[in-house]
Structure formats: C-alpha cells, structure tokens
C-alpha cells in the first residue's frame, strides 16, 4: 500500500470510529498542525458520504458510518448537501448530450487496440439495441396504475401519499400525473423521478391526455422507498419551466 493510500485508510478508520485511541490522538495532532492533512481529512469525509449514498460501503462500514460518523448535526448537514449534489449531478448528466461525451471518451482512449475494441463493442451494442426494439419482447404488457396529484409539500410523508406494493405483480408501474390548471398547454413535458436516497432520473411521458400526462417505470427498477416526481413544462422555444410542487408516492 502506498503511503498516501495508507494515510487515507487511516483517516477512513478514524472517521468511522475504528482507530485505536493512541493512533487517533496521533492523527488528531497531525490534523491540527498540518494543513494538507486537514484537507485530506475533509476529502475523505466527502468520499465516505458519497460512497454511503451510492451504497458502496460494506456492511460493517455502513453500520459504523450510521452509528459514529452521522452522530452530529454537522454531519447530517453534510449528508443532506451531498444528497442534493448527487441529485443535481444525476440530472445534469442526463441533460448533457450523449454523443459529445461518448466522442470525448473515445478520443482520449490510449491505444488503437482499445479503440478498435471500443468500436466493436459499440457496433455490437447498436445491433443488440436494434434487435431489442424490433423484437419488442421486453416492452411492458401489463401495468399497475397510480393516479397522482401535485402537492405543495416538500416532503412525501403522511397517510395521504399513494402507496404501491413491491415487487409489482405487473410488468411496470404507470403513473398518471394530473397537471395543475395553469400549467396545461405546454408543447411537451419532462419528468424527474427521485428516490429518497437521492437518486434521480429523467422520465419521458409516454402519453399526454387532456389534463394529465403518463409516465412508466419498469417493475424491476422500482425499489422500496419514497419517491417524488417533478414536472417540467417545455415551451415551443425549448425553454423549461418547473411546475410548482411535487408528486409523491411510496413503494413498500
């Protein structure tokens, strides 16, 4: 293990409350006198939080994180900030055009062999996708339906929140979102689905009917938790305008 890796590992153990008292005190003295080490501590803190939110911590690490790391209001604030950042980054990466990123990735790959392999994988992927869409075998055939109305609350708690049982007995969940009166008449809509662990994804409405739009999420992508949906009205000039409020539901 390189010295920097070893140091990061030690900081990690310290943050999770797993370092011995003596080692912890030695580290703390260094944190107090060494600006670089203090900065490293803050970086490892952020990385731990991100790994926790991405479900990348092992069982013991996760338990220590919740028991020790999250013991203070300061850390709760850090976690909420990370959840917000996570959601923003997910939404931003979905908005960005795929061709540009793919091209940049391709342009920076180091060897010709790698490029050739990437091209082969790309062709195989396109062929696979074509097969998938032409065959249409995986398209959902049966739906569970939830009718949702917009709420001005920022949280989805409460008995009035519609619930759906998972795993679904149908192929997919269809959500019918009733639009508020003043927001009808946009040329199209975009929907963002967010789970309570901060994961966000964009959904394209499959249908627009009168004062409602419909979005579909496959059954195998629905996990237990609270979900909120945000709706963006897209004008004829392409400008987006977010509708005030959220649509909530719980998968249990």
């Amino acid at each position, binding site marked *: 293990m390189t010295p920097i890796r070893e140091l990061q590992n030690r900081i990690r153990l310290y943050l999770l*409350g797993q370092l011995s008292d003596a080692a912890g005190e030695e580290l*703390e003295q260094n944190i*107090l006198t060494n600006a670089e080490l203090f900065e490293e501590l803050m970086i490892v803190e952020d990385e731990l939080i991100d790994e926790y939110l991405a479900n990348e911590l092992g069982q013991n690490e996760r338990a220590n994180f919740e028991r020790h790391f999250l013991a203070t209001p300061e850390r709760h604030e850090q976690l909420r900030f990370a959840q917000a*950042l996570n959601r923003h*980054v997910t939404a931003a990466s979905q908005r960005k055009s795929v061709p540009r990123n793919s091209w940049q990735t391709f342009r920076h790959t180091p060897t010709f062999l790698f490029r050739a392999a990437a091209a082969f994988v790309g062709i195989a992927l396109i062929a696979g996708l074509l097969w998938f869409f032409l065959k249409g075998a995986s398209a959902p055939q049966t739906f569970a339906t939830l009718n949702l109305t917009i709420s001005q609350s920022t949280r989805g708690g409460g008995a009035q929140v519609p619930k759906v049982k998972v795993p679904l007995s149908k192929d997919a969940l269809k959500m019918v979102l009733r639009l508020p009166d003043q927001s009808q008449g946009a040329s199209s809509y975009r929907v963002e689905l967010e789970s309570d662990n901060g994961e966000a994804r964009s959904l394209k409405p499959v249908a627009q009917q009168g004062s409602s739009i419909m979005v579909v999420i496959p059954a195998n992508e629905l996990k237990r938790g609270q979900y909120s949906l945000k709706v963006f009205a897209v004008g004829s000039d392409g400008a987006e305008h977010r509708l005030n409020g959220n649509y909530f539901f719980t998968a249990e």
Partner: protein
Amino acid sequence: MYVWLASGRFAIQMKKEWVLTQDAFDTLLGWLDPDREQAGMKYEAIRTRLIKIFTCRGCPEAELLADETINRVASKVEEISRSYVGDPALYFYAVAQKVHLEYIRKVHIRQSPISVESAELSTPPVSLLEGFEPEYRCLDRCLERLPPGHRDLVERYYQQEKQAKINHRKLLATELGIALNALRIRACRIRLGLRQCVRDCLEQEPAH
C-alpha cells in the same frame, strides 16, 4: 461550568470569574505569531480544526467545545507564552483533550447507565433525515454563481459510480492536464465553497 439546555442538548458555560477580553485575545494572537495577519489566520485554522476534531469524536456541540478550549488557553496565555516551547497548536490540543474528557464525564453522568458512546452517538437512520429540497434549491442558486469551469468540473467529477467513476476521473484529469490527486483536491475545494454557499443561502431562506 456545564449546563444542560432545555432541549436536553449539552452546553458549556464559561467560568463566571473569567471573560475573554480584547487584551487577552490580543496576547493570544501575539503568541500565535508576531505578524497580526498571520496570527489571525493561525487562530482561524486552529479553531476550524478543533471543531472538526470534536465533530469527529461525535460531539454535537463541537463549536462550543472548541470555543471553550480557546477561552481556557486565552485565560492562561500570558503564563504559557513565557514558558511553553513548541507548536502552540499542540498546546490547544492538550487543553481540548481535557475539555473533551470533562464533556464525556458530564454526558456519562447524565446518561448513565447507557454507555457514553451510545448516548453520544445515537443517530436516526438516513431514511428519517429531513428532506433535502431546500438544500437542492439553494445548491441550484449557488451553482449558477460558480464560474462555468468550476461548475462543469463539479458536474463531471461527481457523476458515475464505482469503476466508471474512477475511469471518468482519470479522463477528466488528463483533459485538464493535472494529476488525479490535484483534481480530487480541486473538486473538494469547490464542493466546500458550495457547501458554505448553501449554508448561507439556507440561513436566508424562510423556515419550512
């Protein structure tokens, strides 16, 4: 003297017979560095790091404990500055240890027979944390104020997961012509600035 607030949270009261005066504070700064500006920076660094250390030890009142540590050092600084040899930060650390021990003892008495750790560190699971909608709104505003290069870096650095994330960051570092660790530090600094901006923004937002 230690007191418990009505909310049940731990708080510390300074000794009534001693109050941090401007003179004591000036002497403290003088001990940290003869240059006033340098001294101010050292003072801020010590305070910030003490807060972090108390937070890492699971103390909910980290800021109060850090200030209590500083006040105790300040109350004796004339005496210390004459005899103490070494980095002043380490003296602060020794006092912080004492303050922490007293805090633990107090919590222990209050919470007994529950272990100090479980009393101190009990925390709700994440699913019970309040929503982060206000943070998200503020973050949007703060990101808009960032220089475009910084915003782009944040959005690209923190996207993807696991191996894809590692590869993506290597690629980003190559594009920027910097080492991976330099990129890591740069992203962390921008994130830290964003967090402060979000904190300031939340203070200005009406309570929900």
